[in-house]
């Protein structure tokens, strides 16, 4: 478990997440095929690879600014819906880190909340619409509560991951409201949302990088 959030930790987290996206590439492709245009696995693998590489090559030492840079690279290389939303999340999360004074748990909680808030704003959505928000929002909430209760980052990430997984399962029962998935209307009910799964993988990567 990390105790300070440095630029190096941002790099480690991006590597973990990228590895998970690679490992789940085909699963994401299948999910997006069922309810979208079938490119999710590709854009996620490509987008996080670009973000990871950008961060690795950067000389930026401030973790928030590094995350913003990685986010801008994600926007450039993964210009799909989710690529742009994640880029927004990274940029807003990075801004939130800037000047954050609290504990590392509070820092990560602030990052996740700003990340989700950015997605909500840019995606013009709210929880319950069968999107990545439905796994990430509960995760950010769990993280915030852990931080408020003064618990450890490892504990917080464990709870956040559990909340993300629960949220992803709950999202299956929802009806899609956005993007191509919305064309399926009632037929989208019962199917997992690829974006929500991506949300779980992101929290899983953070937990691996910062919680273990």
């Amino acid at each position, binding site marked *: 478990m990390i105790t300070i959030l440095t630029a190096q930790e941002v790099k480690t987290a991006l590597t973990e997440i990228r590895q998970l996206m690679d490992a789940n590439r085909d699963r994401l492709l299948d999910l997006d095929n069922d309810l979208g245009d079938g490119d999710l696995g590709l854009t996620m693998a490509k987008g996080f690879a670009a973000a990871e590489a950008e961060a690795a090559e950067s000389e930026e030492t401030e973790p928030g600014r590094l995350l913003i840079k990685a986010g801008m690279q994600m*926007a450039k290389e993964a*210009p*799909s*819906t989710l*690529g*742009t939303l994640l880029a927004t999340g990274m940029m807003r999360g990075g801004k939130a880190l800037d000047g954050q004074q609290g504990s590392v748990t509070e820092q990560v909680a602030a990052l996740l909340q700003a990340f989700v808030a950015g997605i909500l704003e840019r995606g013009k959505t709210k929880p319950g619409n069968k999107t990545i928000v439905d796994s990430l929002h509960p995760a950010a909430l769990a993280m915030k509560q852990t931080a408020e209760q003064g618990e450890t980052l490892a504990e917080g990430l464990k709870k956040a991951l559990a909340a993300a997984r629960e949220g992803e399962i709950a999202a299956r029962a929802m009806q899609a409201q*956005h*993007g191509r998935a919305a064309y399926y209307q009632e037929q989208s009910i019962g199917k997992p949302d690829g974006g929500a799964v991506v949300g779980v993988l992101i929290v899983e990567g953070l937990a691996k990088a910062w919680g273990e």
Partner: protein
Amino acid sequence: MKKFLNEPAAFVDEMVEGILAAHPEQLAAVAGALRCLVRANAPRANKVGIATGGGSGHLPLFLGYVGEGMLDGCAVGGVFQSPSADQMLQVTRTIDSGAGVLYIFGNYGGDIMNFDMAAEMAQMDDIQVEQVIAGEDVASAPKEQHEKRRGVAGIFYLYKVAGALADEGASLEEVKQIAIKAGENVRTMGVALTPCIIPEVGKPGFEIGAGEMEIGMGIHGERGIRRGPLLKADQIVDEMLPVILNDLPYESGDEVSVLINGLGATPKEELYVLNRRVSQILGERGITVFNTYVGEYATSMEMAGASVSLLRLDDELKRLLAKPASTPFFTQLQLEGANP
């Protein structure tokens, strides 16, 4: 798949190369980036820049309207895919003369997010950016939810009047307001007869049965209002036009411009057969027509089908619509009958 293609993955870039080869006096790529196109002489001093963008496969949309009297730049996406915020940012930086940049684009999730993101990034560069979203397809959502409506061929009118006003040296806010006004006064409805093929997919994404049509289908094949047997041309107009007319509503005494748009495979002959009935009905309703555009203005690759758009005119919109324009895909001399 009866297409002129090399590698499907290279389709969009090769298309842009072909466009730049054909129109070198009018268009240029930003620092060699094929998918970031601007007017050859961008930026124009003291002029508000207008940028658009969207997926490929809709020519002349979107890049085809970059030119004199219309747009200054365009971010070009993959077939039916939004371009990236980064492309938009590059275009924005290139066309900004200091007078600010207006984004005009269609109401699609990916485009909205990316333009929003681009605006955020441009503002970090101290470029003033405003956005107007076109959404006028009456078949895509009821009037009460008009903010959900898809943008289709009617965006042409927004480009035209905003471009004309920007050329006169108007401010960013003024150009934005005229685009909003055009958007508020335009309505479109379409009908599809066949699907289309995305080169990288290689087969139609959906089918429309032999002898069937889908009224209200979107330009990416989004579900329409109803599917049914292919009716006669006049019956189709008789079904579609009243939906448009009742939506605004367009009323006796109104003056409109008409746009009969082909979706790709439909011959111009048939578009004029549709226009015949449109003009009859408008005449019966006491609505006068100032200028009729017939042709391909917003397509879906080789989809067979058509859409009808009406723009309700006032003196200002009419004056701006009538001004000359010259882009690689659209050229108009000053139209007579409007106050200059």
